[in-house]
Protein backbone atom coordinates (compact mmCIF):
# COMPACT_ATOMS: atom_id res chain seq x y z
CA UNK A 1 0.00 0.00 0.00
CA UNK A 2 2.76 2.36 1.06
CA UNK A 3 4.69 1.71 -2.11
CA UNK A 4 1.61 2.14 -4.22
CA UNK A 5 0.85 5.50 -2.67
CA UNK A 6 4.45 6.54 -3.01
CA UNK A 7 4.38 5.63 -6.66
CA UNK A 8 1.16 7.58 -7.18
CA UNK A 9 2.80 10.60 -5.62
CA UNK A 10 5.90 10.32 -7.70
CA UNK A 11 3.86 9.95 -10.87
CA UNK A 12 1.78 13.03 -10.11
CA UNK A 13 4.92 14.98 -9.25
CA UNK A 14 6.70 14.06 -12.44
CA UNK A 15 3.63 14.70 -14.57
CA UNK A 16 3.28 18.10 -12.97
CA UNK A 17 6.85 18.96 -13.76
CA UNK A 18 6.49 17.86 -17.35
CA UNK A 19 3.24 19.73 -17.79
CA UNK A 20 4.49 22.79 -16.00
CA UNK A 21 7.60 23.30 -18.09
CA UNK A 22 6.07 24.37 -21.40
CA UNK A 23 4.01 26.86 -19.45
CA UNK A 24 7.12 28.52 -18.19
CA UNK A 25 7.67 29.92 -21.65
CA UNK A 26 5.48 32.89 -20.75
CA UNK A 27 6.62 35.73 -22.91
CA UNK A 28 7.48 39.13 -21.59
CA UNK A 29 5.29 41.89 -22.87
CA UNK A 30 7.01 45.05 -23.96
CA UNK A 31 4.05 47.36 -23.93
CA UNK A 32 1.72 48.37 -21.21
CA UNK A 33 -1.15 45.98 -20.83
CA UNK A 34 -4.06 47.63 -19.03
CA UNK A 35 -5.86 44.32 -18.85
CA UNK A 36 -3.09 43.03 -16.62
CA UNK A 37 -4.35 45.26 -13.82
CA UNK A 38 -7.90 44.08 -14.24
CA UNK A 39 -6.77 40.46 -14.23
CA UNK A 40 -4.57 41.24 -11.25
CA UNK A 41 -7.39 42.76 -9.22
CA UNK A 42 -9.54 39.73 -9.84
CA UNK A 43 -6.73 37.26 -9.11
CA UNK A 44 -5.84 39.19 -5.94
CA UNK A 45 -9.39 38.99 -4.63
CA UNK A 46 -9.70 35.31 -5.51
CA UNK A 47 -6.30 34.05 -4.38
CA UNK A 48 -5.03 36.23 -1.59
CA UNK A 49 -7.91 35.62 0.81
CA UNK A 50 -7.65 31.84 0.73
CA UNK A 51 -5.55 31.45 3.86
CA UNK A 52 -5.76 34.81 5.57
CA UNK A 53 -7.59 38.12 5.25
CA UNK A 54 -6.81 40.31 2.28
CA UNK A 55 -4.45 43.12 3.16
CA UNK A 56 -5.13 46.44 1.55
CA UNK A 57 -2.69 47.37 -1.22
CA UNK A 58 -1.83 50.51 0.74
CA UNK A 59 -0.52 48.41 3.66
CA UNK A 60 2.83 47.87 1.96
CA UNK A 61 5.11 49.72 -0.44
CA UNK A 62 6.32 48.41 -3.80
CA UNK A 63 9.42 46.78 -2.39
CA UNK A 64 7.52 44.99 0.37
CA UNK A 65 4.82 43.79 -2.01
CA UNK A 66 7.48 42.54 -4.36
CA UNK A 67 8.97 40.28 -1.67
CA UNK A 68 5.64 39.22 -0.19
CA UNK A 69 4.00 38.32 -3.48
CA UNK A 70 6.98 36.13 -4.38
CA UNK A 71 6.90 34.67 -0.88
CA UNK A 72 3.22 33.84 -1.43
CA UNK A 73 3.80 32.58 -4.95
CA UNK A 74 5.98 29.91 -3.32
CA UNK A 75 3.85 29.26 -0.24
CA UNK A 76 0.53 29.14 -2.08
CA UNK A 77 1.87 27.49 -5.25
CA UNK A 78 0.59 30.26 -7.51
CA UNK A 79 1.35 30.31 -11.21
CA UNK A 80 3.92 32.98 -12.03
CA UNK A 81 1.59 34.62 -14.52
CA UNK A 82 -1.04 35.03 -11.80
CA UNK A 83 1.51 36.36 -9.29
CA UNK A 84 2.75 38.90 -11.86
CA UNK A 85 -0.77 40.15 -12.50
CA UNK A 86 -1.36 40.50 -8.76
CA UNK A 87 1.95 42.32 -8.36
CA UNK A 88 1.03 44.77 -11.12
CA UNK A 89 -2.27 45.46 -9.44
CA UNK A 90 -0.73 45.96 -5.99
CA UNK A 91 2.00 48.25 -7.29
CA UNK A 92 -0.52 50.31 -9.17
CA UNK A 93 -2.99 50.68 -6.35
CA UNK A 94 -0.84 51.29 -3.28
CA UNK A 95 0.32 54.77 -2.34
CA UNK A 96 3.92 54.26 -3.29
CA UNK A 97 5.19 56.97 -5.61
CA UNK A 98 8.32 56.28 -7.51
Amino acid at each position, binding site marked *: *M*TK*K*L*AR*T*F*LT*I*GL*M*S*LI*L*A*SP*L*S*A*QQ*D*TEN*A*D*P*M*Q*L*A*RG*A*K*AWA*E*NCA*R*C*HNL*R*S*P*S*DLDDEEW*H*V*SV*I*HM*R*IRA*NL*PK*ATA*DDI*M*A*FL*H*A*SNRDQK
Partner: protein
Amino acid sequence: MTRKMFSRILGAASALSLAWAFGTGAVLAQTTENDPVSITNIPFLDMPLETASEKSPYYGPVTGAGAAAGQNGSPKHLPDSIWHLAGYAQAGAFITNGDKNDSFMEGKFSPGFHFLYKEVIMFEAELEIETEDGETKVALEYSQLDWLVLDNTTLIFGKFLSPIGLFRERLHPGWINKLPSAPVGFGHGGVQPLSEIGFQVRGVMPLSSGEPFESARITYALMVGNGPRLGHGGIELEGFSDDDNRNKSFGGRVAFLPVPYLEFGFSYLGANVVGPEDHDTEENLVGNYDLIGFDASYTRSSFDIRFEFLDSRIRGLEDEDHLIAAVGRLVPLSVGPEEEAELLETNADWRAWYAQAAYRLDGISDHRIIKNLEPVIRYGRLRQSGNHELEEANENQLTLGLNYWLAPSAALKLAVQLRDFRDPDRADETIFQFQVVYGF
Protein backbone atom coordinates in the same frame (compact mmCIF):
# COMPACT_ATOMS: atom_id res chain seq x y z
CA MET B 1 -12.18 4.99 6.28
CA THR B 2 -9.78 2.15 5.54
CA ARG B 3 -6.39 2.72 4.01
CA LYS B 4 -7.31 0.60 1.05
CA MET B 5 -10.29 2.79 0.33
CA PHE B 6 -8.19 5.87 0.81
CA SER B 7 -5.50 4.76 -1.56
CA ARG B 8 -8.21 3.96 -4.10
CA ILE B 9 -9.75 7.40 -3.70
CA LEU B 10 -6.32 8.98 -3.96
CA GLY B 11 -5.64 6.93 -7.08
CA ALA B 12 -8.95 7.90 -8.64
CA ALA B 13 -8.48 11.54 -7.76
CA SER B 14 -5.04 11.70 -9.30
CA ALA B 15 -6.26 9.85 -12.38
CA LEU B 16 -9.10 12.35 -12.72
CA SER B 17 -6.77 15.29 -12.25
CA LEU B 18 -4.37 13.96 -14.80
CA ALA B 19 -7.18 13.30 -17.26
CA TRP B 20 -8.29 16.88 -16.75
CA ALA B 21 -4.74 18.06 -17.26
CA PHE B 22 -4.36 16.20 -20.53
CA GLY B 23 -7.87 16.99 -21.73
CA THR B 24 -7.22 20.64 -21.37
CA GLY B 25 -3.59 20.47 -22.42
CA ALA B 26 -4.34 22.08 -25.76
CA VAL B 27 -5.60 25.28 -24.26
CA LEU B 28 -3.11 25.26 -21.43
CA ALA B 29 -0.72 27.92 -22.52
CA GLN B 30 -3.36 30.44 -23.45
CA THR B 31 -3.68 32.86 -20.62
CA THR B 32 -6.49 35.30 -20.24
CA GLU B 33 -4.85 37.90 -22.49
CA ASN B 34 -7.93 38.43 -24.62
CA ASP B 35 -10.53 37.06 -22.30
CA PRO B 36 -13.12 39.50 -21.10
CA VAL B 37 -12.35 40.25 -17.49
CA SER B 38 -15.50 40.17 -15.48
CA ILE B 39 -14.40 42.86 -13.10
CA THR B 40 -15.55 46.35 -13.97
CA ASN B 41 -14.94 48.13 -10.75
CA ILE B 42 -11.41 47.60 -9.49
CA PRO B 43 -11.09 48.17 -5.77
CA PHE B 44 -8.43 50.62 -4.57
CA LEU B 45 -7.71 51.86 -8.06
CA ASP B 46 -8.66 55.51 -8.24
CA MET B 47 -7.18 56.28 -11.63
CA PRO B 48 -7.79 55.17 -15.20
CA LEU B 49 -6.31 51.79 -16.06
CA GLU B 50 -3.90 53.31 -18.58
CA THR B 51 -2.45 55.75 -16.05
CA ALA B 52 -2.14 52.98 -13.52
CA SER B 53 -0.37 50.73 -16.00
CA GLU B 54 2.23 53.39 -16.59
CA LYS B 55 2.77 53.73 -12.89
CA SER B 56 3.32 50.01 -12.68
CA PRO B 57 5.45 48.79 -15.57
CA TYR B 58 5.47 45.23 -14.32
CA TYR B 59 5.12 42.73 -17.06
CA GLY B 60 6.42 39.42 -15.95
CA PRO B 61 10.15 39.94 -15.51
CA VAL B 62 12.61 37.27 -16.49
CA THR B 63 13.16 34.44 -14.03
CA GLY B 64 15.29 31.34 -13.69
CA ALA B 65 18.13 30.91 -16.13
CA GLY B 66 17.37 34.20 -17.88
CA ALA B 67 17.64 36.21 -14.73
CA ALA B 68 20.74 34.31 -13.61
CA ALA B 69 22.32 35.24 -16.94
CA GLY B 70 21.99 38.89 -16.02
CA GLN B 71 18.64 39.92 -17.41
CA ASN B 72 16.80 42.03 -14.95
CA GLY B 73 14.33 40.18 -12.82
CA SER B 74 12.82 43.04 -10.85
CA PRO B 75 10.61 45.93 -11.86
CA LYS B 76 12.76 48.84 -13.06
CA HIS B 77 12.39 50.92 -9.96
CA LEU B 78 13.31 48.17 -7.51
CA PRO B 79 16.80 46.99 -6.61
CA ASP B 80 17.89 43.46 -7.54
CA SER B 81 18.29 42.44 -3.99
CA ILE B 82 15.75 43.27 -1.31
CA TRP B 83 15.40 42.21 2.27
CA HIS B 84 12.25 42.35 4.25
CA LEU B 85 11.20 41.74 7.83
CA ALA B 86 7.80 40.16 8.49
CA GLY B 87 6.29 37.78 11.00
CA TYR B 88 3.83 37.88 13.81
CA ALA B 89 3.32 38.28 17.53
CA GLN B 90 0.69 36.88 19.82
CA ALA B 91 -0.17 37.03 23.49
CA GLY B 92 -2.85 35.15 25.31
CA ALA B 93 -4.38 33.84 28.48
CA PHE B 94 -5.81 30.34 28.93
CA ILE B 95 -7.90 29.50 31.97
CA THR B 96 -8.77 25.86 32.56
CA ASN B 97 -11.74 24.64 34.53
CA GLY B 98 -11.58 20.95 35.27
CA ASP B 99 -9.94 18.44 37.57
CA LYS B 100 -7.15 20.87 38.23
CA ASN B 101 -7.93 24.50 37.81
CA ASP B 102 -5.13 26.02 35.89
CA SER B 103 -4.26 29.13 33.99
CA PHE B 104 -1.37 30.26 31.92
CA MET B 105 -0.27 33.18 29.85
CA GLU B 106 1.50 32.83 26.54
CA GLY B 107 3.66 35.34 24.73
CA LYS B 108 5.15 34.60 21.37
CA PHE B 109 7.11 36.67 18.89
CA SER B 110 8.00 35.16 15.52
CA PRO B 111 10.10 37.43 13.35
CA GLY B 112 10.52 36.29 9.75
CA PHE B 113 13.37 37.34 7.49
CA HIS B 114 13.11 37.37 3.72
CA PHE B 115 16.03 37.99 1.39
CA LEU B 116 15.16 38.12 -2.26
CA TYR B 117 17.56 38.26 -5.18
CA LYS B 118 15.77 39.26 -8.38
CA GLU B 119 13.09 36.68 -8.88
CA VAL B 120 15.47 33.81 -8.63
CA ILE B 121 16.48 33.15 -5.06
CA MET B 122 14.66 33.75 -1.86
CA PHE B 123 15.99 32.92 1.56
CA GLU B 124 13.36 32.83 4.28
CA ALA B 125 13.75 32.09 7.96
CA GLU B 126 11.48 32.44 10.95
CA LEU B 127 12.32 32.36 14.63
CA GLU B 128 9.97 31.46 17.40
CA ILE B 129 10.66 33.35 20.60
CA GLU B 130 8.37 32.18 23.35
CA THR B 131 7.92 33.00 27.00
CA GLU B 132 6.49 30.38 29.29
CA ASP B 133 6.72 30.32 33.07
CA GLY B 134 9.10 33.24 32.99
CA GLU B 135 11.53 31.40 30.74
CA THR B 136 12.33 32.48 27.23
CA LYS B 137 12.83 29.86 24.54
CA VAL B 138 14.17 30.58 21.09
CA ALA B 139 13.64 28.11 18.29
CA LEU B 140 14.23 28.16 14.57
CA GLU B 141 10.87 27.53 13.01
CA TYR B 142 12.22 27.24 9.50
CA SER B 143 15.18 28.36 7.47
CA GLN B 144 15.03 27.60 3.79
CA LEU B 145 16.48 28.54 0.48
CA ASP B 146 13.94 28.78 -2.34
CA TRP B 147 15.13 28.62 -5.91
CA LEU B 148 12.46 29.74 -8.36
CA VAL B 149 13.90 27.53 -11.03
CA LEU B 150 10.98 27.64 -13.47
CA ASP B 151 7.98 29.92 -13.68
CA ASN B 152 5.78 27.43 -11.93
CA THR B 153 8.29 25.27 -10.09
CA THR B 154 10.38 26.05 -7.01
CA LEU B 155 13.09 23.96 -5.37
CA ILE B 156 13.53 24.29 -1.62
CA PHE B 157 16.49 23.26 0.52
CA GLY B 158 16.86 23.46 4.28
CA LYS B 159 14.52 23.30 7.21
CA PHE B 160 10.97 23.90 6.08
CA LEU B 161 7.49 23.64 7.57
CA SER B 162 6.06 20.26 6.76
CA PRO B 163 3.90 20.46 3.62
CA ILE B 164 1.73 17.62 4.99
CA GLY B 165 -1.83 18.83 5.51
CA LEU B 166 -2.98 22.42 5.84
CA PHE B 167 -2.60 23.63 9.37
CA ARG B 168 1.14 23.66 9.84
CA GLU B 169 2.25 25.25 6.62
CA ARG B 170 -0.63 27.63 6.10
CA LEU B 171 -2.73 28.28 9.14
CA HIS B 172 -0.70 28.14 12.34
CA PRO B 173 0.39 31.81 12.74
CA GLY B 174 -1.87 33.49 15.29
CA TRP B 175 -3.12 36.12 12.82
CA ILE B 176 -4.20 33.38 10.39
CA ASN B 177 -5.54 30.72 12.77
CA LYS B 178 -9.19 31.51 13.41
CA LEU B 179 -9.01 30.27 17.01
CA PRO B 180 -6.51 30.86 19.83
CA SER B 181 -5.38 27.21 19.85
CA ALA B 182 -4.40 24.58 17.31
CA PRO B 183 -6.94 21.84 16.59
CA VAL B 184 -6.42 18.76 18.77
CA GLY B 185 -3.67 16.65 17.18
CA PHE B 186 -2.38 19.48 14.98
CA GLY B 187 -0.15 21.39 17.37
CA HIS B 188 3.20 20.60 18.93
CA GLY B 189 3.18 16.97 19.98
CA GLY B 190 0.37 16.15 17.59
CA VAL B 191 -0.20 13.86 14.66
CA GLN B 192 0.73 16.47 12.08
CA PRO B 193 4.46 16.65 11.33
CA LEU B 194 5.89 20.07 12.14
CA SER B 195 8.99 20.51 10.04
CA GLU B 196 11.51 18.63 7.95
CA ILE B 197 15.09 19.09 6.98
CA GLY B 198 15.65 18.11 3.42
CA PHE B 199 14.63 18.93 -0.09
CA GLN B 200 11.31 19.91 -1.61
CA VAL B 201 10.03 20.49 -5.09
CA ARG B 202 6.77 22.39 -5.29
CA GLY B 203 4.73 24.20 -7.83
CA VAL B 204 1.60 24.43 -9.83
CA MET B 205 0.15 23.15 -13.03
CA PRO B 206 -2.46 25.59 -14.38
CA LEU B 207 -5.33 23.82 -16.11
CA SER B 208 -7.16 26.81 -17.55
CA SER B 209 -10.10 25.46 -19.44
CA GLY B 210 -12.46 28.36 -19.90
CA GLU B 211 -15.13 29.84 -17.67
CA PRO B 212 -15.82 29.15 -14.90
CA PHE B 213 -12.68 27.04 -14.48
CA GLU B 214 -10.18 29.41 -16.06
CA SER B 215 -8.06 29.28 -12.91
CA ALA B 216 -8.30 25.54 -12.25
CA ARG B 217 -5.00 24.06 -11.16
CA ILE B 218 -3.15 21.23 -9.55
CA THR B 219 -0.53 22.12 -6.98
CA TYR B 220 2.09 19.87 -5.47
CA ALA B 221 4.76 19.89 -2.78
CA LEU B 222 6.90 16.76 -2.78
CA MET B 223 9.63 16.28 -0.22
CA VAL B 224 12.45 14.06 0.87
CA GLY B 225 13.52 14.63 4.44
CA ASN B 226 15.26 13.14 7.38
CA GLY B 227 11.90 12.10 8.61
CA PRO B 228 10.40 11.28 11.95
CA ARG B 229 12.51 9.64 14.62
CA LEU B 230 11.64 7.36 17.45
CA GLY B 231 13.13 9.10 20.46
CA HIS B 232 12.92 8.70 24.18
CA GLY B 233 9.92 10.95 24.04
CA GLY B 234 8.04 8.90 21.46
CA ILE B 235 7.95 9.53 17.75
CA GLU B 236 9.27 12.98 17.00
CA LEU B 237 7.99 14.77 13.98
CA GLU B 238 10.28 17.76 13.85
CA GLY B 239 13.12 18.26 11.41
CA PHE B 240 16.39 16.66 12.46
CA SER B 241 19.72 17.52 11.00
CA ASP B 242 21.19 14.08 11.53
CA ASP B 243 19.32 11.30 9.88
CA ASP B 244 18.92 8.23 12.00
CA ASN B 245 18.65 5.79 9.15
CA ARG B 246 19.48 5.49 5.54
CA ASN B 247 15.87 5.50 4.52
CA LYS B 248 14.74 9.07 4.15
CA SER B 249 11.16 10.04 4.68
CA PHE B 250 9.29 10.64 1.49
CA GLY B 251 5.97 12.28 0.87
CA GLY B 252 4.13 15.48 0.22
CA ARG B 253 0.82 16.92 -0.70
CA VAL B 254 -1.01 17.21 -4.00
CA ALA B 255 -4.03 19.44 -4.30
CA PHE B 256 -6.68 20.13 -6.88
CA LEU B 257 -8.36 23.54 -7.16
CA PRO B 258 -11.24 23.60 -9.64
CA VAL B 259 -11.67 27.29 -8.72
CA PRO B 260 -9.31 29.34 -6.54
CA TYR B 261 -11.59 29.25 -3.52
CA LEU B 262 -12.12 25.51 -3.41
CA GLU B 263 -9.25 23.14 -2.67
CA PHE B 264 -8.91 19.40 -2.10
CA GLY B 265 -5.58 18.13 -0.82
CA PHE B 266 -4.09 14.66 -0.38
CA SER B 267 -1.03 14.04 1.77
CA TYR B 268 1.28 11.13 2.31
CA LEU B 269 4.41 10.61 4.39
CA GLY B 270 6.33 7.37 4.75
CA ALA B 271 9.52 6.59 6.63
CA ASN B 272 11.39 3.94 8.49
CA VAL B 273 12.00 4.78 12.11
CA VAL B 274 14.61 3.40 14.44
CA GLY B 275 15.49 3.72 18.09
CA PRO B 276 17.93 6.35 19.27
CA GLU B 277 20.88 4.00 19.99
CA ASP B 278 23.12 2.01 17.71
CA HIS B 279 22.85 4.10 14.58
CA ASP B 280 23.72 2.55 11.26
CA THR B 281 23.23 -1.12 12.02
CA GLU B 282 20.69 -3.07 10.09
CA GLU B 283 19.06 -4.45 13.22
CA ASN B 284 18.02 -1.01 14.24
CA LEU B 285 15.30 -0.83 11.67
CA VAL B 286 12.43 -1.35 14.00
CA GLY B 287 9.43 0.25 12.50
CA ASN B 288 7.68 1.55 9.47
CA TYR B 289 5.86 4.84 9.83
CA ASP B 290 3.30 6.08 7.40
CA LEU B 291 0.72 8.81 7.26
CA ILE B 292 -2.11 9.63 4.92
CA GLY B 293 -4.15 12.79 4.94
CA PHE B 294 -7.00 14.53 3.24
CA ASP B 295 -8.07 18.16 3.45
CA ALA B 296 -10.69 20.39 1.90
CA SER B 297 -11.16 24.16 2.07
CA TYR B 298 -13.84 26.51 0.88
CA THR B 299 -12.83 30.13 1.32
CA ARG B 300 -15.09 32.52 -0.45
CA SER B 301 -16.27 36.00 0.47
CA SER B 302 -17.00 35.94 4.20
CA PHE B 303 -16.76 32.16 4.61
CA ASP B 304 -13.77 30.14 5.69
CA ILE B 305 -14.62 26.45 5.95
CA ARG B 306 -12.05 23.71 6.38
CA PHE B 307 -11.74 20.03 7.01
CA GLU B 308 -8.55 18.14 7.66
CA PHE B 309 -7.91 14.47 8.45
CA LEU B 310 -4.63 12.71 9.23
CA ASP B 311 -4.08 9.05 9.94
CA SER B 312 -0.64 7.72 10.85
CA ARG B 313 0.76 4.53 12.25
CA ILE B 314 3.85 2.57 13.13
CA ARG B 315 4.05 -1.08 12.27
CA GLY B 316 6.56 -3.77 13.08
CA LEU B 317 8.31 -2.52 16.18
CA GLU B 318 9.82 -5.93 16.81
CA ASP B 319 13.01 -5.19 18.68
CA GLU B 320 12.16 -5.22 22.39
CA ASP B 321 14.94 -2.77 23.19
CA HIS B 322 13.43 -0.18 20.99
CA LEU B 323 9.89 -0.16 22.17
CA ILE B 324 10.20 3.37 23.29
CA ALA B 325 7.81 5.19 25.51
CA ALA B 326 5.39 7.32 23.64
CA VAL B 327 4.77 10.38 25.70
CA GLY B 328 5.97 13.84 24.99
CA ARG B 329 5.73 15.12 21.50
CA LEU B 330 2.99 12.86 20.35
CA VAL B 331 0.68 13.35 23.27
CA PRO B 332 -0.74 16.83 23.62
CA LEU B 333 -0.47 17.93 27.25
CA SER B 334 1.71 14.94 28.00
CA VAL B 335 1.03 13.04 31.15
CA GLY B 336 3.75 12.51 33.71
CA PRO B 337 7.51 12.45 33.41
CA GLU B 338 9.19 10.34 30.78
CA GLU B 339 10.64 7.77 33.18
CA GLU B 340 7.18 6.68 34.14
CA ALA B 341 6.11 6.38 30.58
CA GLU B 342 4.87 3.10 29.28
CA LEU B 343 6.29 1.21 26.39
CA LEU B 344 4.62 1.24 23.04
CA GLU B 345 3.07 -2.00 22.04
CA THR B 346 4.28 -3.39 18.75
CA ASN B 347 2.02 -1.12 16.81
CA ALA B 348 0.73 2.35 17.37
CA ASP B 349 -1.86 4.46 15.60
CA TRP B 350 -2.57 8.17 15.65
CA ARG B 351 -5.54 9.74 13.97
CA ALA B 352 -6.87 13.28 14.15
CA TRP B 353 -9.38 15.34 12.27
CA TYR B 354 -11.21 18.61 12.59
CA ALA B 355 -13.88 20.57 10.78
CA GLN B 356 -14.00 24.33 11.17
CA ALA B 357 -16.26 27.09 9.92
CA ALA B 358 -15.84 30.83 10.32
CA TYR B 359 -18.06 33.58 9.01
CA ARG B 360 -17.07 37.22 8.93
CA LEU B 361 -20.10 39.38 9.59
CA ASP B 362 -19.13 41.93 6.93
CA GLY B 363 -21.14 39.60 4.73
CA ILE B 364 -24.36 40.73 6.40
CA SER B 365 -23.65 44.07 8.01
CA ASP B 366 -22.02 47.40 7.27
CA HIS B 367 -22.07 48.43 10.88
CA ARG B 368 -18.67 49.75 11.88
CA ILE B 369 -18.29 47.24 14.73
CA ILE B 370 -20.43 44.30 13.68
CA LYS B 371 -18.70 43.95 10.32
CA ASN B 372 -15.42 43.22 12.11
CA LEU B 373 -16.79 40.31 14.10
CA GLU B 374 -16.20 36.72 13.10
CA PRO B 375 -17.81 33.77 14.89
CA VAL B 376 -15.96 30.46 14.58
CA ILE B 377 -16.85 26.87 15.39
CA ARG B 378 -14.48 23.91 15.31
CA TYR B 379 -14.98 20.29 16.22
CA GLY B 380 -12.06 17.89 16.31
CA ARG B 381 -11.10 14.42 17.44
CA LEU B 382 -7.88 12.73 18.42
CA ARG B 383 -7.70 8.95 18.53
CA GLN B 384 -4.51 7.12 19.28
CA SER B 385 -3.63 3.65 20.43
CA GLY B 386 -0.45 1.78 21.29
CA ASN B 387 -0.31 2.13 25.03
CA HIS B 388 -2.33 3.47 27.89
CA GLU B 389 -0.77 6.88 27.82
CA LEU B 390 -1.56 7.40 24.17
CA GLU B 391 -5.10 6.25 24.74
CA GLU B 392 -5.53 8.52 27.72
CA ALA B 393 -5.15 11.53 25.46
CA ASN B 394 -8.03 10.56 23.20
CA GLU B 395 -10.36 13.46 23.02
CA ASN B 396 -13.37 15.04 21.37
CA GLN B 397 -12.93 18.77 21.29
CA LEU B 398 -15.41 21.53 20.57
CA THR B 399 -14.26 25.12 20.35
CA LEU B 400 -16.48 28.16 19.92
CA GLY B 401 -14.83 31.46 19.22
CA LEU B 402 -15.50 35.07 18.40
CA ASN B 403 -12.89 37.28 16.74
CA TYR B 404 -12.81 41.02 16.44
CA TRP B 405 -10.64 42.17 13.54
CA LEU B 406 -8.89 45.48 14.18
CA ALA B 407 -7.07 45.21 10.87
CA PRO B 408 -6.68 42.45 8.25
CA SER B 409 -3.84 40.96 10.29
CA ALA B 410 -4.67 42.09 13.82
CA ALA B 411 -7.39 40.62 15.99
CA LEU B 412 -8.74 40.04 19.45
CA LYS B 413 -9.82 36.41 19.80
CA LEU B 414 -12.06 34.92 22.45
CA ALA B 415 -12.96 31.24 22.71
CA VAL B 416 -14.37 28.51 24.88
CA GLN B 417 -13.01 25.01 24.42
CA LEU B 418 -14.81 21.93 25.68
CA ARG B 419 -12.47 18.97 26.03
CA ASP B 420 -14.23 15.65 26.35
CA PHE B 421 -11.60 13.01 27.19
CA ARG B 422 -12.54 9.49 26.18
CA ASP B 423 -10.82 7.95 29.17
CA PRO B 424 -13.55 7.57 31.83
CA ASP B 425 -10.95 8.27 34.53
CA ARG B 426 -9.97 11.61 33.08
CA ALA B 427 -12.19 14.57 33.93
CA ASP B 428 -13.41 16.76 31.11
CA GLU B 429 -12.10 20.30 30.90
CA THR B 430 -13.37 23.67 29.82
CA ILE B 431 -10.77 26.20 28.73
CA PHE B 432 -11.45 29.90 28.35
CA GLN B 433 -9.07 31.39 25.84
CA PHE B 434 -8.19 34.95 25.07
CA GLN B 435 -5.60 36.04 22.54
CA VAL B 436 -4.34 39.18 20.83
CA VAL B 437 -2.56 38.65 17.52
CA TYR B 438 -0.75 40.81 15.03
CA GLY B 439 0.88 39.82 11.75
CA PHE B 440 3.29 42.33 10.26
